[in-house]
């Protein structure tokens, strides 16, 4: 053990060396990145550092890997890229993290300060470009500011409502000698305040509404996962005997296998969760933002129910739903306090009514007529039994996976919710596996999304991580095809993925094991073989081409207008009025 004070800089340090030292002091294990001219001083400072550099093949991949790492561990993911295109390639990943409140620090190299704004080679105004999609950002103007900025970035990114931070580092700033006194200077954030346990008067008002309700419903969102509110929510649900539903990103914080769980609600949620929305007399959102996937028509949302909103972000209050009572604070702390004021409930009739819906409208799928995505995902669930970390891409497979892969713990379901970023699932799985090397990690992806970031197969091979990639291949951009079939007279346009590669051969070209599944009868055994393989595997499941996700609440509609199962072919559905 060294006895030197890590806060005291050694002599003759460059700005880049001070930067890396600060990252080490914050316990950063990995940096995900791709080098380039303006970032060379920073990559140089990484030589000999205890931080492991993971070299990706495209900067977008680095951001999604960092995102998966952050969601799986709760620690911020760190990305390092160069200026210009290197920096702009991170924008999708930053926006993805921003939409889903993920802690991430993106370090971008930049041209030298005197050339800023003069169209220098590989100059992009990444500070300006990313402004709407970051929680905060810095353009470093002074080498000696680096330790303060890094300290502020780590504080901001993972407190309150987490979000990505971008730090743009001109090459002259990282090359210049660091002459500051400390690597641990005070922060200067007079405008940043983190809400914690919330106001007691608000909590008492919420408790009063609960105590007056007879058909309460708890809605669990990502905020509950981020604050690890699960235990408190379990106590609350049991004390109130309240059914629990979750958003796509809230999966697992309250176990979906619990008898009180209705599973996911919303556009492709369970019919019984959506029925509960139409019938509850109180709905309490814990860390969700009443997003348009669960609330397509705000004026008709939960008619007759009192709305309660618990969220750490004051700007969410009244944004979509005007709450009858609300509390700005950390989900776990607020719920723990709330527990003291709510009374045990008798909700037998309410739970019985919901059980009726559960019997009447179970999730179901065809087992005849070829291999369906639902069948593959159902079989996967049977094998992993909630033990794996599941990441997904975006589209039909994501919704089926959300329906059939029941989560029993927070941070075991990683999916791009707000942004709906195709190409997210595979790199996010690599990041999750870096963060939790002893867990089984399965990426469920579509054939469309996988091809957007498959270059990271090299990163996977190099890392020797045992990530399992399950490609649900229907040779379509399936969700768009579903919309075109249902709402646009089946006029298919821009959805046929003819020309897909042979994914098994593709995996093998990257020296990764490939497994093909084409039939129902071989599905379980082949899946099991792949999951049990000690190294990385790409599983190519060729499923029937034309299948639709149900239930479906068309965009812009309310839960009572849900389509529970496939409508007859001649039934014409009106075009949705809501967003995508």
């Amino acid at each position: 053990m060294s006895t030197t004070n890590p806060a005291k800089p050694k002599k003759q340090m460059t700005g880049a060396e001070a930067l890396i030292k600060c990252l080490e002091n914050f316990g950063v294990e990995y940096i995900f990145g791709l080098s380039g001219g303006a970032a060379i001083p920073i990559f140089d400072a990484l030589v000999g550092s205890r931080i492991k550099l993971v070299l990706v093949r495209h900067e977008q991949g680095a951001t999604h890997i960092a995102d998966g790492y952050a969601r799986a561990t709760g620690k911020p993911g760190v990305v390092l890229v160069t200026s210009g295109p290197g920096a702009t390639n991170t924008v999708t990943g930053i926006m993805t993290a921003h939409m889903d409140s993920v802690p991430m620090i993106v370090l971008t190299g930049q041209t030298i300060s005197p050339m800023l704004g003069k169209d220098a080679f590989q100059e992009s105004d990444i500070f300006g470009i990313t402004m709407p999609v970051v929680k905060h950002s810095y353009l470093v103007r002074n080498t000696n500011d680096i330790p303060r900025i890094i300290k502020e970035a780590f504080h901001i990114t993972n407190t309150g409502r987490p979000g990505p931070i971008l730090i743009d580092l001109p090459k002259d700033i990282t090359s210049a000698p660091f002459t500051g006194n400390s690597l641990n200077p005070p922060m200067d954030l007079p405008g940043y305040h983190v809400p914690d346990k919330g106001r007691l008067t608000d909590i008492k008002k919420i408790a009063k509404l609960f105590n007056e309700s007879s058909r309460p419903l708890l809605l669990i969102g990502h905020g509950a996962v981020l604050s690890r509110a699960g235990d408190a929510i379990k106590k609350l649900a049991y004390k109130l005997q309240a059914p629990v539903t979750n958003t796509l990103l809230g999966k697992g914080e309250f176990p979906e296998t619990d008898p009180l769980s209705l599973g996911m609600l919303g556009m492709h949620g369970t019919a019984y969760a959506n029925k509960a929305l139409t019938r509850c007399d109180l709905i309490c959102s814990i860390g969700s933002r009443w997003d348009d996937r669960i609330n397509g028509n705000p004026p008709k949302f939960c008619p007759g129910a009192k709305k309660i909103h618990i969220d750490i972000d004051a700007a969410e209050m009244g944004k979509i739903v005007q709450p009858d009572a609300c509390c700005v604070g950390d989900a776990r702390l607020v719920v723990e306090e709330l527990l003291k004021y709510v009374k045990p409930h008798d909700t037998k009739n309410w739970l019985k009514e919901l059980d009726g819906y559960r019997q009447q409208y179970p999730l179901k799928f065809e087992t005849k007529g070829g291999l369906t995505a639902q069948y593959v995902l159902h079989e996967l669930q049977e094998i992993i039994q909630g033990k794996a970390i599941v990441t997904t891409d975006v589209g039909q497979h994501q919704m089926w996976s959300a329906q059939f892969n029941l989560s029993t713990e927070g941070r075991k379901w990683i999916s791009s919710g707000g942004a709906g970023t195709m190409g997210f699932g595979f790199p996010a799985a690599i990041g999750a596996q870096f963060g939790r090397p002893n867990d089984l990690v399965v990426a469920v992806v579509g054939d469309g999304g996988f091809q957007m970031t498959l270059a990271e197969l090299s990163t996977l091979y190099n890392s020797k991580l045992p990530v399992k990639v399950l490609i649900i291949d229907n040779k379509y951009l399936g969700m768009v095809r579903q919309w075109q079939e249902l709402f646009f007279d089946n006029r298919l346009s821009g959805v046929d993925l003819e020309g897909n590669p042979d994914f098994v051969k593709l995996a093998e070209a990257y020296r990764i094991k490939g497994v093909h599944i084409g039939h129902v009868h071989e599905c379980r055994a082949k899946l099991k073989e792949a999951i049990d393989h000690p190294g990385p595997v790409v599983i190519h499941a060729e499923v029937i081409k034309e299948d639709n996700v149900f239930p479906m609440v068309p965009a812009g509609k309310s839960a009572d207008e849900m389509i529970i199962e496939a409508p007859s072919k001649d039934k014409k559905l009106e075009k949705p009025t809501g967003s995508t």
Partner: protein
Amino acid sequence: MAQKSDKRKDIHTVSMLVANKPGVLVRCAQVFARRGFNIDALVVSASVNPKFSRMTITATGDPGTLEQIVKQTSKLIDVIHCGEHTRKDSIDREYALIKIKSGSPASKAAIRKLVKSRAHVLDENNGAIIVGQTGTTEELDSLEESLKKFGIIEMVRSGKLVMAKGKEPT
């Protein structure tokens, strides 16, 4: 005029104390733009503490959206404080410079007479008179209206400055 006063109902004045750093103005303006609020006037000035600047934004839009804008602006790390102000809790003033054609000696005299009680003549040159005045938005609107008949060449207005009444900080 009736139309103008109807419009005024949806005009809001927001004051914020922000970190005195590059980029802060863009971050704040983005919140307004994304919600479709047109910024009618904007004043950025020094505050007593050189670390912070004062921004006063006058913008048009519905009150519900404004509430969201205030919340989202408050969320910005570089914003120390952000709030809407009304005449009940604050005073506001702005400044106008108006350039008028001076024309014939008779019209010059008429301008001077009109201006005498309501504004200051700041310059007379090459057939143009520049008058200046401080006042509430309504007072300056009315001054503009009464000068129209002489032919206004151009006008520059500062935008509102706002300060909270009493000991409350703005």
